[in-house]
């Protein structure tokens, strides 16, 4: 119930800029589509229709970056009311994940728009879309716990996270398809937990997206490891977290 109230908090910001959560990814997709499909159209990067291909991955990516970036700030300064509230501090991480997830759900019309423009309806595997959503939710919760507690200890972490996220944008199959990567490298690329999740998002339209099961298993187990690591780190640093609160 408290999470609900925290959402209410976020909603105030929403009213000012709900359309931005639509326009931002849409603009990003359009720009990338222009560059990679129209300008550099000769090279086969990703799968067609490219606009749809991009937006299906960019929205979850957007959610991912926003949430991870927000996690670095959760317990900085006097946020969180840790000085007077006896509620478990995890709810703040949960709040961040949920509100960014809702933002993601709100931005889904972009995909609908892309479907309308490209007239490419998904197949039966679209049912894996919600599965991917749940997996990403759990992954983000884990990463959120990890990042939020660690960045209290190491203030520089916020900067590092930014760089890592930038790198991950290019290391994840967002602009390209996992099938663009040479066969033997696919397993290595799968260490990135987003590979498996983005694949699941896309599988509805492009069943060939998820060719290797090993890659999926590796990717998801990395995600699970991050989840557990997050919970354990947070538990370990909880006392310290309270001490740092001002």
């Amino acid at each position, binding site marked *: 119930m408290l999470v609900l109230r925290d959402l209410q908090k976020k909603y105030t910001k929403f009213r000012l800029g709900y359309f931005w959560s639509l326009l931002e990814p849409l603009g990003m997709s359009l720009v990338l589509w222009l560059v990679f499909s129209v300008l550099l159209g000769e090279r086969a990067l990703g799968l067609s229709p490219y606009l749809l291909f991009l937006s299906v991955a960019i929205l979850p990516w957007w959610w991912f970056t926003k949430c991870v970036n927000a996690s670095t700030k959760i317990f900085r300064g006097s946020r969180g009311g840790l000085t007077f509230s*006896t509620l478990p501090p995890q709810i703040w991480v949960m709040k961040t994940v949920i509100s960014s997830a809702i933002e993601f759900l709100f931005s889904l019309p972009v995909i609908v728009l892309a479907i309308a423009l490209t007239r490419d309806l998904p197949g039966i595997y679209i049912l894996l879309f919600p599965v991917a959503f749940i997996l990403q939710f759990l992954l983000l919760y884990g990463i959120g716990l990890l990042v939020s507690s660690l960045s209290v*200890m190491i203030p520089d972490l916020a900067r590092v996270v930014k760089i890592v996220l930038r790198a991950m944008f290019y290391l994840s199959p967002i602009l390209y398809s996992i099938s663009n990567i040479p066969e033997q490298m696919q397993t290595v690329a799968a260490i990135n937990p987003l590979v498996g999740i983005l694949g699941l998002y896309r599988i509805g339209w492009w069943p060939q997206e998820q060719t290797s099961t090993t890659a999926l298993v590796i990717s998801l187990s990395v995600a699970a490891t991050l989840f557990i690591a997050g919970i354990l780190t947070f538990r370990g640093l909880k006392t310290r977290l309270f001490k740092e609160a001002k």
Partner: protein
Amino acid sequence: MSIVEVSNVSLSMPRTKRRQGSGRKHRLLRIAGETSRSMIPILDNVSFTISPGDSVAIVSGKPLLRTSLTRLVAGTLNPDSGSVVRSERVVAMIGIARAMGASFTLRQNAYLVGGLMGMTQEELTEKIPGIIKFADLGNYLDRYLRVAPSNARQRLAWSLAMAIDARVYAIDGTLVVGELEFRKKCWTAIDALREEGATFLISSHGGKHYRRFCDRGLYFDQGALIADTTVSKALALARKSRQEPGGE
């Protein structure tokens, strides 16, 4: 029967200042993690109990000690060793005002902070008119906090805390609120609560408040509990140690 039982508690806190020196050597050390977050001992093997109806003052020259101890008692900080046992809910009036968001209305802030303090949504809906009335902020209820008077945060914080059905309060340095009129109101509220048998733990920097509100004083020096006596005796001890060279 005691309300709060603090036994053999030791605690150290991270140094509040992040930067210590600016030279290259310090910077390197900081990166290496040697000096960056050193811990300073705050409490050393402290034990005491608070009984119902007590009004306890924490007398110490260190603000960090006072705040930490209030938080320990309120349960928003865990001791490194030892234990703090509470038999009743303690309302912590520590940094409430700072947790409010300037871009929310007062009503939203009341829900948010009240919720964090453990009140339910229905309870708040019912109590908010009274809270606002106490805070005397009726005109601002649905306006953003940033356009409200500058002391609105403190007032709202106070009113929220007073609205909770609790009988134990841990107050940290927030006794001086707003203008004289509101302060009087708060102080009368405290007096009324004390008469009803509520329990207080108060941390403040001035002896004046202690004499006004407390009947028991805990005097700390070098992290150890030196004396558990009346307020005036504790304050006298503090004054004495200030005058002596080497004292706190």
